[in-house]
Protein backbone atom coordinates (compact mmCIF):
# COMPACT_ATOMS: atom_id res chain seq x y z
CA UNK A 1 0.00 0.00 0.00
CA UNK A 2 2.79 2.40 1.08
CA UNK A 3 4.77 1.55 -1.99
CA UNK A 4 1.78 2.24 -4.16
CA UNK A 5 1.37 5.85 -2.85
CA UNK A 6 5.02 6.72 -3.35
CA UNK A 7 4.79 5.35 -6.85
CA UNK A 8 1.80 7.53 -7.57
CA UNK A 9 3.58 10.60 -6.18
CA UNK A 10 6.69 10.00 -8.26
CA UNK A 11 4.68 9.20 -11.33
CA UNK A 12 2.63 12.38 -11.11
CA UNK A 13 5.73 14.47 -10.36
CA UNK A 14 7.33 13.20 -13.55
CA UNK A 15 4.14 13.75 -15.49
CA UNK A 16 3.91 17.28 -14.08
CA UNK A 17 7.44 18.21 -15.10
CA UNK A 18 6.81 16.82 -18.55
CA UNK A 19 3.66 18.88 -18.92
CA UNK A 20 5.40 21.96 -17.48
CA UNK A 21 8.09 21.84 -20.16
CA UNK A 22 5.43 21.91 -22.83
CA UNK A 23 3.62 24.71 -21.04
CA UNK A 24 6.82 26.76 -20.81
CA UNK A 25 7.61 26.39 -24.48
CA UNK A 26 4.07 27.37 -25.29
CA UNK A 27 4.24 30.40 -22.96
CA UNK A 28 7.52 31.54 -24.51
CA UNK A 29 5.89 31.28 -27.90
CA UNK A 30 2.87 33.29 -26.75
CA UNK A 31 5.11 35.90 -25.16
CA UNK A 32 7.10 36.34 -28.38
CA UNK A 33 3.93 36.32 -30.45
CA UNK A 34 2.28 39.00 -28.33
CA UNK A 35 5.15 41.49 -28.66
CA UNK A 36 5.86 40.58 -32.28
CA UNK A 37 2.24 41.11 -33.27
CA UNK A 38 2.42 44.53 -31.62
CA UNK A 39 4.90 45.50 -34.35
CA UNK A 40 2.53 44.49 -37.10
CA UNK A 41 -0.09 46.87 -35.78
CA UNK A 42 2.18 49.78 -36.70
CA UNK A 43 4.42 48.20 -39.36
CA UNK A 44 3.18 46.04 -42.26
CA UNK A 45 4.06 42.32 -42.03
CA UNK A 46 5.03 42.20 -45.69
CA UNK A 47 7.61 44.96 -45.28
CA UNK A 48 9.05 43.21 -42.25
CA UNK A 49 9.32 39.81 -43.91
CA UNK A 50 10.41 40.98 -47.37
CA UNK A 51 12.00 44.38 -46.69
CA UNK A 52 15.56 44.66 -47.92
CA UNK A 53 16.76 47.31 -45.46
CA UNK A 54 17.33 47.08 -41.72
CA UNK A 55 17.59 50.71 -40.53
CA UNK A 56 16.15 50.72 -37.01
CA UNK A 57 17.16 54.23 -35.91
CA UNK A 58 16.43 56.12 -39.10
CA UNK A 59 13.46 58.42 -39.53
CA UNK A 60 11.19 56.66 -40.46
CA UNK A 61 12.77 53.36 -39.35
CA UNK A 62 12.86 50.38 -41.68
CA UNK A 63 12.66 46.85 -40.30
CA UNK A 64 13.25 44.63 -43.31
CA UNK A 65 14.59 41.30 -42.12
CA UNK A 66 15.77 39.89 -45.47
CA UNK A 67 19.45 40.89 -44.92
CA UNK A 68 19.39 39.45 -41.39
CA UNK A 69 17.70 36.23 -42.46
CA UNK A 70 20.11 35.76 -45.36
CA UNK A 71 23.02 36.58 -43.04
CA UNK A 72 21.97 33.81 -40.66
CA UNK A 73 21.29 31.46 -43.60
CA UNK A 74 24.70 32.03 -45.22
CA UNK A 75 26.62 31.60 -41.98
CA UNK A 76 24.64 28.47 -41.13
CA UNK A 77 25.04 26.85 -44.54
CA UNK A 78 28.76 27.63 -44.44
CA UNK A 79 29.10 26.11 -40.99
CA UNK A 80 27.12 23.00 -41.95
CA UNK A 81 29.18 22.42 -45.09
CA UNK A 82 32.27 22.43 -42.90
CA UNK A 83 31.12 20.57 -39.82
CA UNK A 84 28.91 17.81 -41.23
CA UNK A 85 31.60 15.94 -43.21
CA UNK A 86 34.17 16.46 -40.45
CA UNK A 87 31.72 15.54 -37.70
CA UNK A 88 30.36 12.40 -39.36
CA UNK A 89 33.86 11.25 -40.30
CA UNK A 90 35.00 11.76 -36.72
CA UNK A 91 31.99 9.83 -35.43
CA UNK A 92 32.74 6.96 -37.85
CA UNK A 93 36.35 6.91 -36.70
CA UNK A 94 35.47 6.97 -33.01
CA UNK A 95 32.63 4.48 -33.34
CA UNK A 96 33.99 1.97 -35.84
CA UNK A 97 37.69 2.31 -36.49
CA UNK A 98 39.53 3.56 -33.43
CA UNK A 99 40.87 1.04 -30.90
CA UNK A 100 39.13 1.00 -27.54
CA UNK A 101 41.75 3.04 -25.64
CA UNK A 102 41.88 5.80 -28.25
CA UNK A 103 38.09 5.82 -28.38
CA UNK A 104 37.80 6.81 -24.72
CA UNK A 105 40.36 9.61 -25.09
CA UNK A 106 38.66 10.99 -28.20
CA UNK A 107 35.24 10.86 -26.58
CA UNK A 108 36.36 12.93 -23.62
CA UNK A 109 38.16 15.37 -25.91
CA UNK A 110 34.92 15.92 -27.82
CA UNK A 111 33.20 16.65 -24.52
CA UNK A 112 35.89 19.20 -23.64
CA UNK A 113 35.35 20.79 -27.05
CA UNK A 114 31.69 21.19 -26.18
CA UNK A 115 32.55 23.07 -23.01
CA UNK A 116 34.57 25.92 -24.55
CA UNK A 117 32.60 29.13 -23.91
CA UNK A 118 31.50 30.85 -27.13
CA UNK A 119 32.94 34.19 -26.08
CA UNK A 120 36.39 32.59 -25.97
CA UNK A 121 35.95 31.33 -29.52
CA UNK A 122 34.79 34.80 -30.55
CA UNK A 123 37.91 36.29 -29.06
CA UNK A 124 40.09 33.84 -30.95
CA UNK A 125 38.17 34.84 -34.06
CA UNK A 126 38.90 38.54 -33.57
CA UNK A 127 42.58 38.36 -32.72
CA UNK A 128 43.70 35.38 -34.76
CA UNK A 129 41.30 33.71 -37.22
CA UNK A 130 39.96 36.96 -38.73
CA UNK A 131 43.37 38.55 -39.48
CA UNK A 132 44.67 35.14 -40.63
CA UNK A 133 41.83 34.67 -43.14
CA UNK A 134 42.20 38.24 -44.36
CA UNK A 135 45.87 37.88 -45.14
CA UNK A 136 45.69 34.36 -46.63
CA UNK A 137 42.56 34.88 -48.75
CA UNK A 138 43.34 38.58 -49.51
CA UNK A 139 39.98 39.73 -48.20
CA UNK A 140 39.11 43.34 -47.48
CA UNK A 141 38.35 42.45 -43.88
CA UNK A 142 38.60 39.34 -41.70
CA UNK A 143 35.29 40.14 -40.03
CA UNK A 144 33.18 38.17 -42.46
CA UNK A 145 30.75 35.29 -42.77
CA UNK A 146 33.47 32.71 -43.30
CA UNK A 147 35.14 33.50 -39.97
CA UNK A 148 31.76 33.06 -38.32
CA UNK A 149 31.04 29.83 -40.20
CA UNK A 150 34.36 28.27 -39.20
CA UNK A 151 33.94 29.09 -35.52
CA UNK A 152 30.29 28.04 -35.49
CA UNK A 153 31.21 24.77 -37.23
CA UNK A 154 33.66 24.21 -34.41
CA UNK A 155 30.86 24.76 -31.89
CA UNK A 156 28.42 22.41 -33.62
CA UNK A 157 30.98 19.60 -33.98
CA UNK A 158 30.49 18.06 -30.51
CA UNK A 159 26.71 17.84 -31.01
CA UNK A 160 27.08 16.23 -34.41
CA UNK A 161 29.83 13.84 -33.31
CA UNK A 162 28.11 12.52 -30.20
CA UNK A 163 24.66 12.06 -31.74
CA UNK A 164 26.04 10.48 -34.94
CA UNK A 165 28.13 8.16 -32.83
CA UNK A 166 25.06 7.08 -30.87
CA UNK A 167 23.32 6.41 -34.17
CA UNK A 168 26.24 4.30 -35.38
CA UNK A 169 26.26 2.37 -32.11
CA UNK A 170 22.61 1.48 -32.45
CA UNK A 171 23.21 -0.33 -35.76
CA UNK A 172 22.74 -4.01 -34.81
CA UNK A 173 25.95 -6.05 -34.56
CA UNK A 174 24.44 -8.69 -36.82
CA UNK A 175 24.64 -6.25 -39.77
CA UNK A 176 28.41 -5.97 -39.40
CA UNK A 177 28.83 -9.69 -38.86
CA UNK A 178 26.73 -10.45 -41.90
CA UNK A 179 28.70 -8.00 -44.02
CA UNK A 180 32.05 -9.40 -42.89
CA UNK A 181 30.68 -12.94 -43.34
CA UNK A 182 29.95 -12.10 -46.98
CA UNK A 183 33.55 -11.02 -47.41
CA UNK A 184 33.07 -7.23 -47.35
CA UNK A 185 36.07 -5.13 -46.37
CA UNK A 186 35.85 -2.73 -43.42
CA UNK A 187 35.45 0.24 -45.79
CA UNK A 188 32.67 -1.50 -47.72
CA UNK A 189 30.90 -2.33 -44.47
CA UNK A 190 31.20 1.23 -43.22
CA UNK A 191 30.14 2.93 -46.42
CA UNK A 192 27.50 0.53 -47.73
CA UNK A 193 26.01 -1.00 -44.59
CA UNK A 194 26.55 1.00 -41.41
CA UNK A 195 26.25 4.53 -42.74
CA UNK A 196 22.95 3.90 -44.60
CA UNK A 197 21.44 2.08 -41.61
CA UNK A 198 22.39 4.95 -39.30
CA UNK A 199 21.38 7.67 -41.77
CA UNK A 200 18.24 8.76 -39.92
CA UNK A 201 20.20 9.25 -36.70
CA UNK A 202 22.92 11.12 -38.56
CA UNK A 203 20.33 13.37 -40.20
CA UNK A 204 18.98 14.13 -36.73
CA UNK A 205 22.51 15.00 -35.58
CA UNK A 206 22.90 17.35 -38.53
CA UNK A 207 19.57 19.04 -37.84
CA UNK A 208 20.44 19.56 -34.17
CA UNK A 209 23.81 20.94 -35.28
CA UNK A 210 22.00 23.41 -37.53
CA UNK A 211 19.82 24.42 -34.60
CA UNK A 212 22.92 25.03 -32.53
CA UNK A 213 24.57 27.15 -35.23
CA UNK A 214 21.59 29.30 -36.14
CA UNK A 215 20.87 30.16 -32.51
CA UNK A 216 24.44 31.03 -31.53
CA UNK A 217 24.85 34.71 -30.75
CA UNK A 218 28.13 35.68 -29.16
CA UNK A 219 30.47 34.38 -31.86
CA UNK A 220 28.25 35.74 -34.62
CA UNK A 221 28.19 39.17 -33.05
CA UNK A 222 31.92 39.29 -32.43
CA UNK A 223 33.35 38.09 -35.75
CA UNK A 224 30.89 38.54 -38.62
CA UNK A 225 31.15 42.33 -38.89
CA UNK A 226 27.39 42.87 -38.43
CA UNK A 227 26.87 44.79 -41.68
CA UNK A 228 23.13 44.65 -42.49
CA UNK A 229 23.77 44.06 -46.18
CA UNK A 230 22.18 41.44 -48.42
CA UNK A 231 25.13 39.06 -48.61
CA UNK A 232 26.54 37.99 -51.96
CA UNK A 233 29.12 35.61 -50.57
CA UNK A 234 30.48 34.25 -47.31
CA UNK A 235 33.63 36.31 -47.75
CA UNK A 236 31.93 39.59 -46.90
CA UNK A 237 30.64 41.01 -43.62
CA UNK A 238 27.04 40.13 -42.78
CA UNK A 239 24.61 40.44 -39.91
CA UNK A 240 22.74 37.55 -38.32
CA UNK A 241 19.31 37.48 -36.66
CA UNK A 242 20.82 36.67 -33.26
CA UNK A 243 23.52 39.36 -33.34
CA UNK A 244 20.89 41.95 -34.26
CA UNK A 245 18.79 41.09 -31.24
CA UNK A 246 21.73 41.02 -28.85
CA UNK A 247 23.32 44.16 -30.25
CA UNK A 248 20.21 46.31 -30.29
CA UNK A 249 18.04 45.11 -27.41
CA UNK A 250 19.94 47.17 -24.86
CA UNK A 251 19.07 50.49 -26.45
CA UNK A 252 15.41 49.96 -27.10
CA UNK A 253 12.78 51.42 -24.84
CA UNK A 254 10.17 48.92 -23.69
CA UNK A 255 7.10 49.32 -25.88
CA UNK A 256 8.76 51.12 -28.79
CA UNK A 257 8.54 50.06 -32.42
CA UNK A 258 12.19 48.97 -32.43
CA UNK A 259 11.63 46.84 -29.31
CA UNK A 260 8.70 45.05 -30.95
CA UNK A 261 10.71 44.62 -34.15
CA UNK A 262 13.40 42.75 -32.21
CA UNK A 263 10.72 40.51 -30.75
CA UNK A 264 9.45 39.85 -34.25
CA UNK A 265 13.00 38.85 -35.21
CA UNK A 266 13.01 36.60 -32.14
CA UNK A 267 9.76 35.02 -33.26
CA UNK A 268 11.20 34.26 -36.70
CA UNK A 269 14.23 32.68 -35.05
CA UNK A 270 12.03 30.67 -32.71
CA UNK A 271 9.94 29.34 -35.60
CA UNK A 272 13.08 28.39 -37.55
CA UNK A 273 14.66 26.49 -34.66
CA UNK A 274 11.32 24.90 -33.81
CA UNK A 275 10.92 23.54 -37.34
CA UNK A 276 14.52 22.32 -37.39
CA UNK A 277 14.10 20.51 -34.09
CA UNK A 278 10.82 19.03 -35.25
CA UNK A 279 12.47 17.65 -38.38
CA UNK A 280 15.34 16.31 -36.27
CA UNK A 281 12.80 14.63 -34.02
CA UNK A 282 11.04 12.98 -36.95
CA UNK A 283 14.37 11.60 -38.17
CA UNK A 284 15.30 10.37 -34.68
CA UNK A 285 11.98 8.57 -34.35
CA UNK A 286 12.46 6.95 -37.74
CA UNK A 287 15.94 5.88 -36.62
CA UNK A 288 14.56 4.11 -33.58
CA UNK A 289 12.18 2.05 -35.63
Amino acid at each position, binding site marked *: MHRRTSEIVIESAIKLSGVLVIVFVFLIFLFLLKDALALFRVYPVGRFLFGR*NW*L*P*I*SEPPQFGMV*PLFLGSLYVTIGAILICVPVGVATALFIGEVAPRSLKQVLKSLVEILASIPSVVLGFIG*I*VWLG*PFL*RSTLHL*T*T*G*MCGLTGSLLLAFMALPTIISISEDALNSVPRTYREAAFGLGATQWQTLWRIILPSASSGIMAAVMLGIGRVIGETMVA*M*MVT*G*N*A*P*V*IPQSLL*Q*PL*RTLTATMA*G*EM*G*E*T*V*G*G*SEHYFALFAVGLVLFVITFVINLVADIFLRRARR
Partner: protein
Amino acid sequence: MLAVLAAASLAGCSKDMDPNEPSGFVRIKGSDTLVNAVQEVSEEFMKEYPYVFVAVTGGGSGVGIASLINKTCDVASSSREMKPKEIEIARQHGVFPKEFTVAYDGVAVIVNKANPVEKLTLSDLHRIFTGKATRWTEFGGKDLPIVTLSREVSSGTHAYFKEEVVCLGRKDSTEEFSAKTLLLSSSQAIVEEVVTNEAAVGYLGMGYAGDRTRSIRVSKASSEFIAPTVREVMARRYPLARGLYFYTDGDPKGAVKLLVDFTLGPEGQQHLVSTGFVPLGATGAQTNQ
Protein backbone atom coordinates in the same frame (compact mmCIF):
# COMPACT_ATOMS: atom_id res chain seq x y z
CA MET B 1 27.63 44.49 -9.84
CA LEU B 2 27.13 41.98 -7.05
CA ALA B 3 30.41 42.97 -5.50
CA VAL B 4 29.37 46.60 -5.47
CA LEU B 5 26.05 45.72 -3.87
CA ALA B 6 27.76 43.56 -1.30
CA ALA B 7 30.19 46.34 -0.51
CA ALA B 8 27.31 48.77 -0.20
CA SER B 9 25.40 46.59 2.22
CA LEU B 10 28.54 45.85 4.23
CA ALA B 11 29.33 49.52 4.50
CA GLY B 12 25.72 50.16 5.45
CA CYS B 13 26.11 47.89 8.43
CA SER B 14 29.51 49.03 9.59
CA LYS B 15 29.61 50.80 12.93
CA ASP B 16 31.94 53.58 11.91
CA MET B 17 29.58 55.02 9.32
CA ASP B 18 29.01 58.67 10.06
CA PRO B 19 25.24 59.29 9.88
CA ASN B 20 25.88 62.92 8.92
CA GLU B 21 27.81 61.97 5.79
CA PRO B 22 25.83 61.68 2.57
CA SER B 23 25.20 58.10 1.54
CA GLY B 24 23.46 56.31 -1.27
CA PHE B 25 23.86 54.36 -4.47
CA VAL B 26 24.12 55.92 -7.92
CA ARG B 27 23.85 53.97 -11.17
CA ILE B 28 25.34 55.61 -14.25
CA LYS B 29 24.76 53.94 -17.58
CA GLY B 30 25.29 54.79 -21.21
CA SER B 31 27.93 56.28 -23.47
CA ASP B 32 30.93 54.10 -24.21
CA THR B 33 32.76 57.25 -25.22
CA LEU B 34 32.37 58.59 -21.68
CA VAL B 35 32.56 55.36 -19.70
CA ASN B 36 36.26 55.44 -18.81
CA ALA B 37 36.22 59.14 -17.91
CA VAL B 38 33.07 58.77 -15.81
CA GLN B 39 34.60 55.75 -14.09
CA GLU B 40 37.61 57.85 -13.14
CA VAL B 41 35.48 60.76 -11.94
CA SER B 42 33.35 58.33 -9.90
CA GLU B 43 36.36 56.81 -8.20
CA GLU B 44 37.52 60.28 -7.20
CA PHE B 45 33.99 61.11 -6.08
CA MET B 46 33.86 58.00 -3.89
CA LYS B 47 37.07 59.09 -2.17
CA GLU B 48 35.39 62.36 -1.33
CA TYR B 49 32.07 60.80 -0.29
CA PRO B 50 32.98 57.36 1.06
CA TYR B 51 29.38 56.34 1.78
CA VAL B 52 28.09 56.95 -1.73
CA PHE B 53 28.60 54.06 -4.13
CA VAL B 54 28.67 54.66 -7.83
CA ALA B 55 28.27 51.91 -10.42
CA VAL B 56 29.29 52.86 -13.97
CA THR B 57 28.34 50.79 -17.02
CA GLY B 58 28.65 51.41 -20.75
CA GLY B 59 26.72 49.90 -23.65
CA GLY B 60 26.17 53.06 -25.70
CA SER B 61 24.26 56.30 -25.29
CA GLY B 62 21.07 54.68 -26.54
CA VAL B 63 21.38 52.03 -23.82
CA GLY B 64 21.75 54.74 -21.17
CA ILE B 65 18.78 56.72 -22.41
CA ALA B 66 16.66 53.56 -22.68
CA SER B 67 17.52 52.58 -19.13
CA LEU B 68 16.75 56.08 -17.84
CA ILE B 69 13.32 55.70 -19.40
CA ASN B 70 12.99 52.13 -18.11
CA LYS B 71 14.15 53.46 -14.70
CA THR B 72 17.09 51.10 -14.38
CA CYS B 73 19.69 53.85 -13.94
CA ASP B 74 19.91 57.19 -12.13
CA VAL B 75 22.12 59.02 -14.58
CA ALA B 76 22.23 58.35 -18.33
CA SER B 77 25.50 59.43 -19.89
CA SER B 78 25.22 60.24 -23.56
CA SER B 79 27.37 61.44 -26.41
CA ARG B 80 24.35 62.80 -28.25
CA GLU B 81 21.35 64.90 -27.31
CA MET B 82 18.12 63.08 -26.58
CA LYS B 83 15.81 63.09 -29.58
CA PRO B 84 12.43 64.83 -29.22
CA LYS B 85 10.80 61.44 -29.80
CA GLU B 86 12.76 59.92 -26.91
CA ILE B 87 11.79 62.79 -24.60
CA GLU B 88 8.17 62.23 -25.55
CA ILE B 89 8.44 58.48 -24.82
CA ALA B 90 10.15 59.29 -21.51
CA ARG B 91 7.26 61.55 -20.51
CA GLN B 92 4.83 58.74 -21.32
CA HIS B 93 6.81 56.56 -18.91
CA GLY B 94 6.71 59.25 -16.21
CA VAL B 95 10.34 60.24 -16.64
CA PHE B 96 11.28 63.92 -17.14
CA PRO B 97 14.83 64.06 -18.45
CA LYS B 98 17.02 66.97 -17.39
CA GLU B 99 20.10 67.63 -19.45
CA PHE B 100 23.57 68.57 -18.19
CA THR B 101 26.44 69.19 -20.58
CA VAL B 102 29.48 67.68 -18.84
CA ALA B 103 32.21 68.13 -21.47
CA TYR B 104 32.98 68.50 -25.16
CA ASP B 105 34.57 65.99 -27.44
CA GLY B 106 35.87 65.69 -30.96
CA VAL B 107 35.03 62.70 -33.13
CA ALA B 108 38.26 61.45 -34.67
CA VAL B 109 38.34 59.63 -38.01
CA ILE B 110 41.10 57.03 -37.83
CA VAL B 111 42.99 55.00 -40.43
CA ASN B 112 45.83 52.51 -40.43
CA LYS B 113 49.29 54.03 -40.07
CA ALA B 114 50.30 52.59 -43.44
CA ASN B 115 47.51 54.50 -45.16
CA PRO B 116 49.00 57.57 -46.90
CA VAL B 117 45.72 59.54 -46.82
CA GLU B 118 46.12 62.32 -44.25
CA LYS B 119 43.32 64.77 -44.81
CA LEU B 120 39.73 64.63 -45.99
CA THR B 121 36.87 67.07 -46.28
CA LEU B 122 33.48 66.45 -44.72
CA SER B 123 32.06 65.70 -48.15
CA ASP B 124 34.88 63.18 -48.78
CA LEU B 125 33.90 61.47 -45.51
CA HIS B 126 30.27 61.62 -46.57
CA ARG B 127 31.12 59.89 -49.86
CA ILE B 128 33.20 57.27 -48.05
CA PHE B 129 30.67 56.37 -45.36
CA THR B 130 27.63 56.35 -47.64
CA GLY B 131 29.46 54.02 -50.01
CA LYS B 132 29.64 56.46 -52.95
CA ALA B 133 33.42 56.33 -52.89
CA THR B 134 34.75 52.79 -52.75
CA ARG B 135 38.51 52.96 -53.38
CA TRP B 136 41.29 54.77 -51.58
CA THR B 137 42.87 55.84 -54.90
CA GLU B 138 40.16 58.50 -55.17
CA PHE B 139 41.70 60.30 -52.19
CA GLY B 140 45.34 59.78 -53.11
CA GLY B 141 45.70 56.49 -51.28
CA LYS B 142 46.73 52.98 -52.27
CA ASP B 143 44.71 50.85 -54.67
CA LEU B 144 42.60 49.22 -51.96
CA PRO B 145 38.84 49.02 -51.38
CA ILE B 146 37.65 51.22 -48.53
CA VAL B 147 36.39 49.25 -45.52
CA THR B 148 34.15 51.47 -43.41
CA LEU B 149 33.77 50.75 -39.71
CA SER B 150 31.04 52.11 -37.50
CA ARG B 151 29.74 51.62 -33.99
CA GLU B 152 26.46 49.77 -33.39
CA VAL B 153 23.21 51.74 -33.63
CA SER B 154 23.09 52.00 -29.82
CA SER B 155 26.10 54.31 -29.89
CA GLY B 156 25.67 58.06 -29.53
CA THR B 157 28.77 58.55 -31.65
CA HIS B 158 27.03 56.54 -34.41
CA ALA B 159 23.99 58.83 -34.18
CA TYR B 160 26.18 61.96 -34.18
CA PHE B 161 28.26 60.77 -37.12
CA LYS B 162 25.16 59.80 -39.07
CA GLU B 163 23.72 63.26 -38.54
CA GLU B 164 26.84 65.27 -39.33
CA VAL B 165 28.60 63.16 -41.96
CA VAL B 166 26.12 60.75 -43.51
CA CYS B 167 23.31 63.32 -43.62
CA LEU B 168 25.73 66.32 -43.69
CA GLY B 169 23.66 68.03 -41.00
CA ARG B 170 20.52 68.18 -43.15
CA LYS B 171 17.47 67.22 -41.13
CA ASP B 172 15.45 66.05 -44.13
CA SER B 173 18.27 63.89 -45.51
CA THR B 174 17.40 60.25 -46.13
CA GLU B 175 20.99 59.12 -46.65
CA GLU B 176 22.18 56.08 -44.72
CA PHE B 177 25.48 54.48 -43.83
CA SER B 178 26.52 52.20 -46.68
CA ALA B 179 25.00 48.79 -45.95
CA LYS B 180 28.50 47.35 -46.25
CA THR B 181 29.65 49.27 -43.19
CA LEU B 182 30.82 46.95 -40.41
CA LEU B 183 28.97 47.64 -37.17
CA LEU B 184 31.32 46.89 -34.30
CA SER B 185 30.29 46.70 -30.69
CA SER B 186 32.95 48.92 -29.10
CA SER B 187 35.44 51.70 -29.79
CA GLN B 188 38.17 49.24 -28.92
CA ALA B 189 37.00 46.81 -31.62
CA ILE B 190 37.24 49.67 -34.14
CA VAL B 191 40.80 50.45 -33.06
CA GLU B 192 41.78 46.74 -33.31
CA GLU B 193 40.38 46.42 -36.83
CA VAL B 194 42.05 49.66 -38.00
CA VAL B 195 45.39 48.57 -36.52
CA THR B 196 45.33 45.27 -38.43
CA ASN B 197 43.55 46.39 -41.63
CA GLU B 198 45.25 48.81 -44.00
CA ALA B 199 42.04 49.50 -45.91
CA ALA B 200 39.88 50.32 -42.89
CA VAL B 201 38.55 53.68 -41.77
CA GLY B 202 36.56 54.19 -38.58
CA TYR B 203 35.46 56.95 -36.21
CA LEU B 204 35.40 57.28 -32.44
CA GLY B 205 35.59 59.76 -29.58
CA MET B 206 39.05 61.37 -29.81
CA GLY B 207 39.92 60.19 -26.29
CA TYR B 208 40.10 56.66 -27.74
CA ALA B 209 42.34 57.51 -30.68
CA GLY B 210 45.71 56.35 -29.38
CA ASP B 211 49.01 56.32 -31.22
CA ARG B 212 48.44 52.89 -32.80
CA THR B 213 46.28 54.51 -35.48
CA ARG B 214 46.44 57.83 -37.33
CA SER B 215 43.75 60.50 -37.04
CA ILE B 216 42.69 62.16 -40.28
CA ARG B 217 42.76 65.96 -40.50
CA VAL B 218 39.28 67.11 -41.44
CA SER B 219 37.96 70.29 -43.01
CA LYS B 220 34.47 71.60 -43.48
CA ALA B 221 35.01 72.99 -46.96
CA SER B 222 38.32 72.30 -48.65
CA SER B 223 40.10 75.24 -47.03
CA GLU B 224 41.80 74.30 -43.81
CA PHE B 225 42.41 70.79 -42.50
CA ILE B 226 42.27 70.51 -38.72
CA ALA B 227 43.53 67.66 -36.54
CA PRO B 228 41.29 66.42 -33.71
CA THR B 229 43.06 67.77 -30.63
CA VAL B 230 41.78 69.25 -27.39
CA ARG B 231 43.06 72.65 -28.42
CA GLU B 232 41.32 72.67 -31.80
CA VAL B 233 38.03 71.52 -30.28
CA MET B 234 38.35 74.24 -27.62
CA ALA B 235 38.93 76.81 -30.34
CA ARG B 236 35.87 75.42 -32.13
CA ARG B 237 37.91 74.87 -35.26
CA TYR B 238 37.60 71.08 -35.57
CA PRO B 239 34.39 70.41 -37.54
CA LEU B 240 33.31 67.16 -35.83
CA ALA B 241 32.86 68.34 -32.25
CA ARG B 242 29.94 67.74 -29.97
CA GLY B 243 28.73 67.95 -26.39
CA LEU B 244 28.69 65.07 -23.93
CA TYR B 245 25.72 64.90 -21.63
CA PHE B 246 24.30 63.57 -18.41
CA TYR B 247 20.55 63.05 -18.16
CA THR B 248 18.69 62.63 -14.88
CA ASP B 249 15.02 62.07 -14.14
CA GLY B 250 13.86 65.53 -13.04
CA ASP B 251 16.11 67.71 -10.89
CA PRO B 252 18.75 65.46 -9.32
CA LYS B 253 18.47 64.96 -5.60
CA GLY B 254 20.69 63.57 -2.83
CA ALA B 255 23.63 61.48 -3.93
CA VAL B 256 22.80 61.92 -7.63
CA LYS B 257 22.94 65.70 -7.24
CA LEU B 258 26.29 65.44 -5.44
CA LEU B 259 27.68 63.37 -8.28
CA VAL B 260 26.43 65.69 -11.03
CA ASP B 261 27.78 68.73 -9.17
CA PHE B 262 31.10 66.99 -8.63
CA THR B 263 31.37 66.17 -12.34
CA LEU B 264 30.61 69.76 -13.35
CA GLY B 265 32.92 71.14 -10.62
CA PRO B 266 36.66 71.78 -10.98
CA GLU B 267 37.79 68.33 -9.83
CA GLY B 268 35.42 66.42 -12.07
CA GLN B 269 36.32 68.60 -15.03
CA GLN B 270 40.00 68.06 -14.38
CA HIS B 271 39.52 64.29 -14.63
CA LEU B 272 37.54 64.62 -17.83
CA VAL B 273 40.41 66.63 -19.29
CA SER B 274 42.97 64.06 -18.21
CA THR B 275 41.00 61.34 -20.06
CA GLY B 276 41.11 63.34 -23.30
CA PHE B 277 37.94 65.44 -23.24
CA VAL B 278 37.45 69.17 -23.51
CA PRO B 279 36.25 70.92 -20.35
CA LEU B 280 33.14 73.07 -20.23
CA GLY B 281 34.57 76.48 -19.37
CA ALA B 282 37.01 76.37 -22.25
CA THR B 283 34.59 76.94 -25.10
CA GLY B 284 32.62 79.51 -23.16
CA ALA B 285 29.50 77.64 -24.12
CA GLN B 286 28.22 76.89 -20.63
CA THR B 287 24.68 75.82 -21.34
CA ASN B 288 23.56 74.42 -18.00
CA GLN B 289 21.07 76.60 -16.27
